[in-house]
């Protein structure tokens, strides 16, 4: 058996491999379930019901899918250029912090609904982009590896967010009322800063779809996207062609961070209506990291990210809902991991051709 590089990647494989990995993951996790004495079919049935069929399940799935779409897009936008921004987690937190401030301030000052929401989106963009620009600037000017710096800043962002509520009397913290004296909480947004939803479909979901289309357009139909692609594929060729490397790195990191930041704004505006700084709340959802799973499974295609985010969001939702009962805990993480492992393994089939039976004569070991 030998492996050789494909010159052309057939289109059907680009769909077949992620689909195949989903199927394989269900098989493999089923084996894990059977091996540990669980009824696999029953567990899957439970997941499916909790994700789509039970009353209110679909709305919960959308609630989970929306932040994943944002963080998935953030990862896709950066990874396409081989900028490994794994800081969507922290950028989402920072976007939530800034958007919450904007909502509290403008909503409290009687601005019209639409303007408050627009300001929250802009503030979320700014917060996320600013946080992403720290690794971006370090990478552009000092060639510091952005993988580790963006990862480290996730933790700093989480501690900052917790600090704002738990250890200070900051602008975000509720300081009056009975509950506030018992346990530290954040202020609830005024009604003018609550994002509307079309039935069960949150406004953030719509913004995510819009963002996906914009990013797709940017990367496939504009000069900027083309140059970013060249830079990702071959930095040397990009430099010879006169593409401004630093500027591109900064721009792509800012876009990636801004998208994650809107995810934070949507968390605050669509769902929690306050800054969820509890280490056991938002931070336990790992939206930033799961977003990378989503992006990788979508092969960094922004439009596919939205679809995959919905599916992974469904799985995530089922995991949250079924926690505790007679449902094996940790199964969702195991399944997500296996899905991703098989998608990664499947990449080999997309990029390379495996030929069987035509092995070259192996050189005799001396």
């Amino acid at each position, binding site marked *: 058996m030998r492996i050789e590089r494909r010159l052309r990647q057939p289109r059907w494989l680009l769909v077949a491999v992620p689909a195949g990995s989903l199927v394989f993951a269900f098989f493999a996790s089923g084996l894990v379930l059977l091996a540990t004495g669980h009824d696999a079919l029953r567990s899957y049935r439970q997941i499916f019901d909790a994700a789509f069929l039970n009353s209110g399940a679909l709305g919960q799935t959308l609630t989970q899918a929306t932040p994943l779409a944002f963080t998935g897009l953030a990862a896709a936008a950066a990874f396409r250029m081989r900028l490994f921004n794994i800081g969507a987690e922290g950028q989402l937190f920072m976007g939530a912090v800034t958007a919450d401030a904007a909502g509290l301030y403008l909503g409290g000052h009687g601005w019209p609904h639409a303007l408050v929401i627009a300001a929250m989106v802009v503030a979320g963009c700014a917060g996320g982009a600013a946080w992403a620009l720290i690794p971006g600037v370090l990478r552009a000017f000092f060639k510091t590896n952005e993988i580790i710096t963006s990862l480290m800043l996730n933790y700093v962002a989480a*501690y900052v967010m917790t600090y704002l509520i738990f250890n200070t009397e900051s602008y975000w913290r509720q300081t009056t009322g009975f509950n506030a004296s018992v346990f530290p909480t954040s202020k609830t947004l005024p009604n003018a800063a609550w994002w509307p939803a079309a039935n069960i479909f949150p406004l953030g979901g719509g913004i995510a779809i819009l963002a996906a289309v914009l990013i797709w357009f940017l990367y496939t139909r504009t000069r900027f996207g083309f140059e970013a692609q060249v830079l990702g594929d071959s930095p040397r060729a990009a430099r010879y062609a006169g593409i401004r490397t630093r500027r591109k790195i900064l721009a792509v990191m800012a876009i990636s961070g801004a998208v994650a930041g809107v995810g934070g704004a949507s968390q605050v505006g669509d769902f929690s209506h306050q800054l969820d700084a509890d280490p056991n709340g938002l931070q336990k959802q790992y939206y930033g990291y799961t977003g990378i*799973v989503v992006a990788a499974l979508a092969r960094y295609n922004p439009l596919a990210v939205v679809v995959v985010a919905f599916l992974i969001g469904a799985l995530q939702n089922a995991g949250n809902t079924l926690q505790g009962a007679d449902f094996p805990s*940790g199964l969702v993480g195991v399944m997500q991991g296996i899905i991703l492992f098989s998608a990664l393994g499947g990449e080999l089939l997309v990029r390379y051709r495996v030929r069987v039976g035509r092995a070259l004569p192996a050189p005799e070991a001396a």
Partner: protein
Amino acid sequence: MNNSLLVVVLASGVAYGTPLLYASLGEVLAERSGVLNLGVEGMMLVGAVMGFWAVQRVHAATGVSLALAIGVAAIAGIAMAAIHAFLVITLRASQIVSGLALTIFAGAAGLSSYLGNDLNLADNPARHHFDAIFPSSMQHWSIVGPILFGQSLLVYASWICVVAVSLYLSRTRPGLNVRAVGEAPASADAMGINVTRYRYGHTLAGGAFAGVAGATFTLSITPQWTSGITGGAGWIAIALVIFAFWRPALCLVGAYFFGALQALSPQLQAREIHLGPTELWTNSLPYVMTVVVLVFVSASGARRRLGAPASLGLPYVREER
């Protein structure tokens, strides 16, 4: 004297630093061979849960069951690392995504929690755990007592590991080979070094160390199992490797420093000493300092002497060299 802030913080810094030390030693081995494994947290958690399982289920003398538990934890870590190794070395997948996938697969919301639940491990104290090994009279010696003689066997074993890994990397032929593989796999291959075998071996060794690091939590620091018991130590260990410039001896210094920072915040609170937002800066300092060190290392002069292995994160494909 022994209750002074400095001594208490240093003594618990050594204890808290030990899992960081084990995990970072393993990550140094993997990264020196060119394989970045971001799955440390996941490997640690599976090591922690399996080590704890072994100590609960094996009915034997304390020493035997603890030794067995450490062995089981190491094997569990190896099994997790094997997934990563297969994906990134054989299948040439992205090391970043695969490592993150490993943490999701094995981590607090994944396999470790599944196993802990299925094997009914929560809510019970460990049947055996690592205790301080020196007589209590020695532990009461001023200053050095609590810091040096109040520790468990795992701490002293980790010192041996530091020396062993350090000598291995700098003084033995396989150690030199693995550094060659991490810096320039094509040249190493041309020299007749089996790049694939070296990368597999050291990634798996990294898994074994991570597994033991996890077991340090469940068998020594807080001898029980709760889901997500490592609380992000795996990520600090990854930071530590950079902080230590990929050198085992510096890992020891960094591990105890980061460990002491973890111990500092509750101690300051208990003594009602206020140094600004204590929790914020003691918690984030390891991460911020790692970023600063990383910026420093990436300056061109330091990069060659102190920096990351040149081929870290890159798959090696002989046909495309």
